[in-house]
């Protein structure tokens, strides 16, 4: 099972995701802001990060650039209530883009895919 960081400024979303993902056996760190994401990644050493885009204090797309620059191969899934951010070039740096839903089937599918997508070491 995986270690997952969830970044979302809506508490009920964090609670829902945490409960469901823990039920599936994952270890979850839930954060209300992406401001100190680098420190949290360093400390928690996650296998995947799930990132909201439209947050009160910081843009998830900017957090994504920060994560990608520091942790080149860290799997990141953008999870937003809005599909329109998919058109933003900054979202290209994410592994996957999922539109928020109370049904977590799609998100869980993408978590599985992100975990399976490790680039192999060369010969």
């Amino acid at each position, binding site marked *: 099972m995986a270690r997952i960081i969830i970044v979302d400024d809506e508490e009920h979303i964090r609670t829902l995701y945490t409960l469901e993902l823990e039920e599936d056996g994952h270890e979850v760190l839930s954060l209300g802001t992406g401001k100190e994401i680098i420190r949290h990644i360093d400390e928690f050493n996650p296998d995947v990060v799930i990132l909201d885009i439209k947050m009160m204090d910081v843009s998830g797309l900017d957090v994504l*650039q920060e994560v*990608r*620059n520091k942790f*080149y*191969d860290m*799997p*990141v899934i953008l999870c937003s209530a809005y599909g329109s951010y*998919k*058109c933003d*070039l*900054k979202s*290209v*740096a*994410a*592994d996957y883009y999922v539109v928020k839903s109370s049904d977590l089937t799609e998100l869980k599918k993408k978590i599985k*895919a992100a975990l*399976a*997508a*490790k*680039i*192999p*070491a*060369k*010969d």
Partner: protein
Amino acid sequence: MTDWILENPDNVTEADIVVGIPSRNEADTIAFPTQMASEGLTSYFKGMKAVIVNCDNLSTDGTKEAFFSATCEVPRIYVSTPEGVAGKGNNFRNLFQLVCDLKAKAVVVVDADLKSITPKWIKNLGEPLFNDYGYVTPIYLRHKYDGTITNNIAYPMSRCLYGRRVRQPIGGDFGFSGELARFYLEHETWDEAVAYFGIDIWMTTLAMYSRKQITQAFLGRPKIHRAKDPASSLGPMFKEVVGTLFNLQSKFESFWKEVKMSRPTAIFGFGLGETEMPPAVSVDVDALYHNLHNGYQDWKDLWREALAPETHSKLMEVMELAPEHFEFPSQLWAHVLFDMSVAYRDRITDTNTLMNSVSPLYFGRTLSFVRSTEGMAMQQAEEYIEEQCQTFEDAKPYLLERWG
């Protein structure tokens, strides 16, 4: 000893950053990218030793003179292949050698026919190389019908095989580290196709294979150069790009077989102001349709031999479609390319003949792409290309089965 013609009037012996401008008879255009490179280097790489290198194919139209007479505050070097030796890749090979000799840390390459380059292109292609990245590819807005070899072959195939999403793997404008230049210089996969137009896909593939950190530089302005109607004659470029792709696929089998899904690549360089829309590219759809059907007459036997029976049967269905209903599905296109890569590995015929037989199929797929995206805005067409890439990734088990 290197067999080149070298002019180094400023006696440059070492550099931190090199901007390379490959050319062949570009006297009319080379002054502008040279000037922009100079402005980029002086504005954004202050305090660094910089040099601009024109890597030429002994042009006869005065390219060298135009390069040296451009407005430029940075030292310049002219290097050329000897008489009788052409090829973009050969120009790059001279550049790799020069970069190693100058012990440069970073290299930026831009095309000599660029009309839309700005000094910030040099910044965005070069700066990541001083921040742990080894290879930088461009991201610029291109018209949906510009770059159809990229959209329908180079991007989906390289992403599916090597697992890294690099949107413009043969963009022509790149950044790479001095370390990677040495790796290129010494790599044993160099061949005749790489010495010509295979160079771009070869460099990108080797960067992915060697697991260098790759980023994509957002360049803000569209690439304005000599864009061509995708229905016009392909020339040697198609054969050299696709041939190199297939050749490396054979060489790097143990790597790509382990890649399950693709990973993203970061984008570097936002905040360039309002982005400009690229100029439209017109397409002769009738010519695409005829090129496919004329190709059938020439290559039907080879197609039957190279393609798996099921792929061939579906292709024959497509061949029967009238122009107004024409469609070449993404999954079939993926299977066709995968089958052709197996045929290349098995050497069922010589490379030139096999590539000639693939080109009509590419015209067919391009026609389908044009038809499917004609009512789409650029962003929608981009999503269509992403979906095609996902289809290639989903079809990879088919390739693994065929490859054996």
